[in-house]
């Protein structure tokens, strides 16, 4: 199996006034294509920081990260933007939808930056929304949708450009358990299609769905377990 995510000895330092925060401290990690990985750990342990680096939103202070064989440190900001647009889909804990726009418009947003024509954009967004079961809510604004529906819109937006990697940072953190279950079912379906899923979570039963569970503490990986089925 191909491994497209390779992190070697990644550190991330944040300057907070006089003191330095070591959010990641020598993290090495490889993730193969099609893996379903959960990242666990207490609050402030560096999970989000790790996700942001994997998702090319942020750059490590030191260490090497290769994505599809490309050293990310060598890319310009605009090249990182293009990489995020083509290869990565983000799902955030607080959904991060644009309130002014309809669900359909939100989902089509990444395609605007890909430079896809309007008709194709419309079709792809409709299909992505249908896939997460929101075909009948396409033209509602986020404030007219429930939390679970909003997160499904966000997932549709993450998968609309058919990325190989989907990153979800506590996607069920703001949802009730039933909505959380629905969301997890969607992630499983996406994983069965062959997409790499990396999911940050607090909840052990959510993590239990994943085949691989990585635990982080104080910016270090303290355990990395694989379940065989």
């Amino acid at each position: 199996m191909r491994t497209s995510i390779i992190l070697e000895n990644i550190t991330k330092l944040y300057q907070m006034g006089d003191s330095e925060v070591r959010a990641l401290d020598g993290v090495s990690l490889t993730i193969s294509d099609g893996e379903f990985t959960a990242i666990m750990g207490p609050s402030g342990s560096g999970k989000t920081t790790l996700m942001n680096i994997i998702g090319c939103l942020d750059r490590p202070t030191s260490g090497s990260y290769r994505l599809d064989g490309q050293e990310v440190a060598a890319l310009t900001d605009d090249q990182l933007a293009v990489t995020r647009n083509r290869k990565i889909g983000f799902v955030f804990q607080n959904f991060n939808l644009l309130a002014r726009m309809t669900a359909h418009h939100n989902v089509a947003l990444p395609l605007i930056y890909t430079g896809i024509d309007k008709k194709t954009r419309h079709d792809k967004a409709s299909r992505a929304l249908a896939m997460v079961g929101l075909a009948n809510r396409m033209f509602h604004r986020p404030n007219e949708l429930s939390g679970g529906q909003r997160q499904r819109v966000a997932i549709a937006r993450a998968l609309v450009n058919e990325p190989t990697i989907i990153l979800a940072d506590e996607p069920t953190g703001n949802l009730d358990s039933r909505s959380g279950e629905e969301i997890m079912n969607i992630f499983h379906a996406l994983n069965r299609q062959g997409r790499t899923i990396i999911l940050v979570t607090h909840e052990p039963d959510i993590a239990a769905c994943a085949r691989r569970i990585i635990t982080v503490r104080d910016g270090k990986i303290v355990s990395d377990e694989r379940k065989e089925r």
Partner: protein
Amino acid sequence: MFWESIIIALEGLKANKLRSVLTMLGIIIGVGAVIAMVSIGMGVRQKVQTSIAGLGSNLLIITPGATSPTGVRLAAGSNNSLTVQDAQAIAREIPGVSLVAPFVSRQYQVIYGNKNWTTSIQGTTPEFLTVRNFTVDSGTFFSGQDNDTRARVAVLGRTVADNLFGDISPIGQTIRINKAPFRVIGVLGAKGQSAGGADQDDMVLIPLTTAQERVLGITFLHSISVQAVSADVINQVQDEIVELLRSRHRLGAKPDDFTVRNLAAILATAEETTRTITLLLGNIAAISLVVGGIGIMNIMLVSVTERTREIGIRKALGATYYNILLQFLIEAVVIGVTGGLIGIGLGVGSSYAISGIAGWNTVVSFSSILLAFGFSVMVGLFFGLYPARKAALLDPIEALRYE
């Protein structure tokens, strides 16, 4: 992407109507003021141009008495230095002169029946008609022979005809000027007000010799109008007239006892003045455009801060520096252009209102509309650039963490 951005920008403006209008207000007022002010300036200029041109083309006017270079009449020099012989000499001896009209005038009461009207009685020769650009509306003008025979005939200006005769035709009627009877043989076409606001139709024309000998009792002239054959020779003709009159008046080393005014030169000066006024008005208005631009910058900076999270989301989804820059620049330009369009409507409307209500002449020129519009686009671009750059340079992580 480009059209998308324009639509996104328009939607944004629509979502926040009151704020958008307040932001645009500076541009609306600026553009409106530029157009209205320039149209007033151009109106004044056009009015001065037509009224000076209406006096007659290629015209030189000679008056007795010296004038200082600033145009102030000096006490020195006699006021009876110009004669009919001077006028005849100019016509005879100076090439480049096409017509010469000697001229005298004084205020008198004119009586017809039980009506009277005090007006300017002007004695001149038939050349006056062409030189000063008058037309005969009805009847005829007096001839050279009327002048030779000191005939008691009169041609009325429109204002005099209206006041003395009303609806009756004045032709063939007898009026009394300073108690002497005159037969009306014609009425001039109306010319309206001069640049100075004087009524150019409030006068009665009679033959020069009649005026000099039978009415005023003088032998000198009040002025001589000279028409040059073309604008090219007018300065040369002016110099030759000065030379001729100096030698005829035997002035030697003494200063001129007459003044030659060149209407082309006066016209040029007047145009220069009105151009300056127009420019000044336009500049004052342009300052308000800049103030409007600062308003755009202010609101765009607020908008960038408010939408920090949106910018973070867009960047996470793959928006590049250029994408974000373009989005905010287009918003700023859309504010500028929308404000500019409303301002054009306002400016054109108010300049028509000014000419309608105040009775001023205004000229809405296409170039001032184009200029003001172009300016508002530039203002949007210029003052939008800094906020847009600020947005485009935001770090996606920082922007997403923004509360």
